[in-house]
């Protein structure tokens, strides 16, 4: 992929380090790249994580709202930063994190729910997937596998598969969501190492898949800026993925999106086009050249852990529906996201979006009181939603 983007990455980054700053400003931090002069006075910045335990009575479960007939309760807590969740064959729920570097394990022992730190000291172990009794952990470019994981909860001895997968080591947007497809392959995204920049399209802006041992690499989707949520349609097996669009292009542009990977290796628009938004800073290709997203999710809403509900306990309209946690905006003056939405197919395949779990956003004060960041269908048909800000998992059930 040949790209020429002017005025984005400063020329300084191409020079030797000694020359770089003497002649031109070096690259700004990745999250600030593409910030226009008129926004130079903005104090918007990514939200600080909370890494301390939030006591159960300080978790805002009472403020949360679900549709009529549903019930939301606090299911587990005391796990700072918890995001993605994966279920072991014997019922252990594993929880990944970013900054705090931990993987948690939650299980019921003699009717008591027990949470523990299963692994720690990892670099952003945000990607978790279970296959054949083994837990796969993606911690930035590292890929680890813990065999027979539920029999090794106290002394895990991971197998390091990092070299086999050979992922790019750039830190920015290097944190992962991972999942096994119905084809038995492990799907791993690789975000762009910047906000908006020129990249090698064979190494970045990708969703790729491998055999579980890290061989037979295949590019599933191109032009994907940063996907940290995807799943496979329960009937068609197709890959549906959410994507985070760039920052510093305004409060209301561009929107984060939901896509279907209809054709393997298809290009979805980065850096030129995001959800129908033709980026004025990037010349070259037009939005019309790319498949449109399945759904526009909204500006800066930050979809994380996009998940198909596979249970039967919820009413008919929710079966096979997507649940998309929106962790919420930072690069927007009025907060957006901070809720879980459902997306289901209506007549003729038209997608219908509805709010499902709300109350994390304090509209009056433009503040948030939680960040939904993962979703998991449980064997009993309930749905777990993680909240990285409160280190908690909520359980949503239907009926009595």
């Amino acid at each position, binding site marked *: 992929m040949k790209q020429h983007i002017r005025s984005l990455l400063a020329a*300084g*980054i191409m020079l030797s*380090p*000694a020359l*770089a*700053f*003497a002649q031109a*400003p*070096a*690259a*700004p*931090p*990745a*999250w*600030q790249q593409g910030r226009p002069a008129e926004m*130079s*006075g*903005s*104090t918007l*910045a*990514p939200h*600080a*994580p909370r*890494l*301390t*335990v*939030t*006591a159960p*009575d*300080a978790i*805002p479960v*009472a*403020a949360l709202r679900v549709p009529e007939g549903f019930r939301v309760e606090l299911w587990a807590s005391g796990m700072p930063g918890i995001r993605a969740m994966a279920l072991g064959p014997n019922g252990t729920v594993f929880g990944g994190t970013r*900054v*705090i*570097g*931990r993987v948690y394990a939650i299980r019921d022992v003699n009717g008591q729910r027990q949470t523990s730190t299963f692994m*720690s*000291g990892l*670099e952003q172990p945000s990607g978790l997937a279970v296959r054949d009794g083994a837990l796969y952990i993606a911690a930035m470019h590292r890929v680890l596998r813990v065999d027979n994981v539920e029999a090794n909860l106290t002394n895990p001895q991971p197998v390091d598969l990092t070299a086999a997968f050979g992922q790019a080591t750039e*830190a*920015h947007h290097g944190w992962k969501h991972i999942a096994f497809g119905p084809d038995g392959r492990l799907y791993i995204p690789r975000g762009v190492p910047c906000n908006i920049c020129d990249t090698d399209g064979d190494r970045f802006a990708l969703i790729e898949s491998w055999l579980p041992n890290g061989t037979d690499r295949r590019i599933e989707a191109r032009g994907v800026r940063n996907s940290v949520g995807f799943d496979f349609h329960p009937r068609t097996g197709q890959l549906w993925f959410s994507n985070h669009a760039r920052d510093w292009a305004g409060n209301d542009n561009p929107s984060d999106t939901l896509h279907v990977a209809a054709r393997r290796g298809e290009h979805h628009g980065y850096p030129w086009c995001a959800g129908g938004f033709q980026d004025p800073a990037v010349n070259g290709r037009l939005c019309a050249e790319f498949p449109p997203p399945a759904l526009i999710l909204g500006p800066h809403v930050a979809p994380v852990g996009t998940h198909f509900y596979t249970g039967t306990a919820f009413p008919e309209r929710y079966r096979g529906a997507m649940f998309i946690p929106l962790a919420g905006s930072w690069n927007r003056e009025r907060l957006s996201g901070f809720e879980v939405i459902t997306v289901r197919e209506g007549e003729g395949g038209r997608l219908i979006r509805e709010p499902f779990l709300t*109350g*994390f*956003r*304090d509209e*009056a*004060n433009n*503040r948030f*009181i939680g960040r939904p960041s993962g979703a998991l269908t449980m064997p009993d048909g309930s749905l777990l939603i993680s909240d990285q800000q409160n280190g908690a998992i909520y359980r949503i059930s239907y009926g009595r």
Partner: protein
Amino acid sequence: MGAAAVMAAALAFSAQAQDAARGAALAEARNCAQCHGPRGVSDTPIIPSLAGQQAEFTTLQLILFREGIRRVPAMVEPMRGMSDQQIEDLAAWFASLPSERRADRGPANPALMARGAEISAGRNCNACHLPTYAGRANIPRINHQREDFLEHTLAEYRDGARVGTDTNMNGLMNGLTDGDIRALAHFLAHQE
């Protein structure tokens, strides 16, 4: 209970949870003063002052030490077995200590000050650290700090040897020469 009421309750809880007096006792027990100074003002080369540091920043950094994410050998033993509560208490204690201009600060070098000001303006240091460089919440105070510590830690960010709760500082220091960093540290250490 509405969202605002829940939030108010949560804030009230966290305010109550941090106790500077307990933090002072813990600082004594863990001998923080040996390196960081009796009132959080460090007299030890490349060891930071902690007086008046933002409590949220100190809390996050202590957790990164405890979890083995930010690896500094001298901090391993002091952090052993420390609870979240103890960390928040310690952070509250250091935040409560007065931050003042260093008594041993040398005169400002005009050339370094000018170069440092230029770098700070170019990288919008004051957007996050505020124009006073006193910081806010998770963004640290960087005025009143030891100049050698600033120089050391800014170079560590540049060289990928220092992790924070995100990679912003690593990106910001990208491309700076040792001379640039010396000037920036000098400029910051001479802020009031």
